[in-house]
């Protein structure tokens, strides 16, 4: 009906057209005012942009555990760096490439769990590169623990140590295992570049899970199932993932005091406009 009248009266068409053009113009203006059209120029953006220096030396999980370096354009497809870190704490916040610096996990014992011994898509970051003492000489720990400079101990029982107070402050008070364990229950007495389990199997520092799992079976099963511990990469079951191993998060020498060493958090969100501080949140600390 309306269509017909439009066709029959050209003058109305002209008026309608003019109206529509005017409407479109107003819409475009409103759009501009609303900021739909973000007309900020690149130059303007740079003017606004903060020039805080990019943090390149960072750490994963906890400080002193795994140090990493930011590499620009590591993923050329998107111009991504390999990772981005916090400007306040140097902690890694974001991965451009989740598999940066990783190697296949390799063979793991088949314990008839959900993984069915399939670790083809499991990747880990080797630990040896991040161990301070291990990297003090070309021979690793054997630089000093060569049997002559430091003799091979005859007993595994606790004794005061002259060295390594930075790792365990008082060697007589090692709390891992609530006093039942001592250094040489996990570190091989004869080859200090290796760990050793209770059956005498030598285990590399890159595979701490094989040692830890021999006592902490519950956590180990959960870790293999994907419930305990951190994994990044793809979300699909059986997809390619980077697994975090035990010592990337837990420090076995202080684990009795802290399952995870305390650390400084990232900054809080900005306060809402008009709020001067957040003291009201702490009134009575839960007593009100």
């Amino acid at each position, binding site marked *: 009906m309306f269509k017909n009248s439009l066709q029959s009266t050209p003058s109305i068409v002209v008026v309608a057209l003019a109206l529509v053009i005017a409407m479109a113009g107003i819409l*475009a203006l409103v759009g501009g005012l609303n900021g739909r059209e973000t007309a900020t120029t690149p130059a303007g953006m740079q003017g606004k942009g903060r020039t805080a220096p990019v943090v390149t030396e960072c750490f994963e999980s906890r400080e002193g555990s795994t140090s990493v370096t930011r590499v620009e354009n590591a993923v050329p497809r998107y111009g991504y760096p390999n990772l981005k870190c916090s400007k306040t704490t140097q902690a890694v916040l974001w991965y451009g490439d989740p598999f940066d610096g990783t190697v296949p996990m390799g063979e793991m014992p088949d314990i008839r769990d959900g993984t069915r011994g399939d670790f083809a898509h499991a990747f880990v970051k080797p630990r040896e590169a991040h161990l301070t003492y291990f990297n003090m000489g070309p021979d690793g720990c054997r630089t000093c623990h060569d049997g002559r400079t430091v003799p091979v101990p005859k007993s595994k029982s606790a004794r005061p140590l002259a060295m390594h107070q930075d790792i365990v402050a008082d060697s007589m008070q090692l709390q891992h295992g609530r006093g039942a364990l001592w250094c040489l229950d996990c570190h091989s007495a004869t080859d200090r570049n290796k760990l050793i389990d209770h059956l005498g199997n030598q285990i590399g520092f890159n595979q701490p899970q094989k040692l830890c799992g021999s006592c902490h079976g519950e956590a180990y099963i959960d870790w293999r199932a994907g419930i305990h511990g951190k994994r990044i990469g793809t979300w699909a079951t059986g997809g390619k993932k980077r697994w975090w191993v035990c010592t990337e998060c837990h420090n076995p020498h202080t684990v009795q005091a802290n399952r995870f060493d305390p650390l400084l958090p990232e900054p809080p969100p900005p306060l809402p406009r008009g709020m001067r501080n957040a003291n009201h949140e*702490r009134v009575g600390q839960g007593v009100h």
Partner: protein
Amino acid sequence: MSEAERKTDDDLHDGNSSRRDFLRNLGIAGASALISAGAPSESMANAPDTVSETSVQEFLQGHFVLMSEEEKKEAIARLEKRYSVQYSKKTTVADTPAPEGVLFGYALDIAKCIGCRRCVHACVEENNQSRGEHAIQWIQVMKIPKGNFSFSADRLDKGYPENSAVGDYGVQVGGNAYTPAGGLSTAHAQNYYAADEAVPDKDFFYVPVQCQQCEKPPCVKACPVRATFRDENGIVLIDYNWCIGCRMCQLACPYGARRFNWGEPELPAEEMNPKTHYFGNRPRMRGVMEKCTFCVQRTREGRNPACLEACPVGARKFGNLLDPESDVRKIIATKRVFRFKEEMGTYPKFFYYIG
């Protein structure tokens, strides 16, 4: 929506879509007429032509879900062009479809969370939120004194009658605002705890809250223009260009998960993430709503969300709820799991657990 359905929709609204084309063409003509008439504002005069031209077309575009394939391609090309000029780097706006047979779920261990807020800032790095004066963060970490949580099944039921005379509206009849009958009490939550004290504090526990991706999302019900909707994977998404900024969804959300762009977003070009998705992390404009999408630009391509990858304690787990072998399903099967504000009847797909 399937291809067939979309076709019939287009057929039904054929007249409508041609009207849209007509309007759009007129819009371009109108805008160029304005510019040639010397009417542009100062900022427009400085802006490259591509930016001002594309924004008029953007303003007139329809709902992305209802667009034809060509219209989608056009809309995405427009956005890519504009962002690439604005942020002086090659920007991609993906339109990756939702993977089939997947219902995304999230699990978070409140026994492990140490409140380090790395997830909050990882999310900002990934999702191109506004920095500076109008800073927006999608995740909020609550620091709650111990004792404000009860997990006893008989207490959880108290106060929330299954079948009362007035019906099950999630109305709390037991306890009060300060001492609820059960569940997680946020009455003493601190959201702004300082960054100069080490975490975790032994007297507190930490609960990060983000969009819970409800199966019955109140925000979707509240939206008067259907700019926000639930996708095939159960993720609640927003078409930023279709959003009218009425903030009804923000009021409707019981979790405070939605954020509004009160000002022009401030996103430094060097910090902008150029890999974006139309419904995900593409730069937003003033006056629109935004929220967590479980990193739709990543998860639809198989990768984990950014908050999960940042968590130093492995408290965050993500996966397919329809896959019994997925991490999330294993957690639901073996751990003590609860959902936040369960009494609201929103059926979140974000599960908190005690590992």
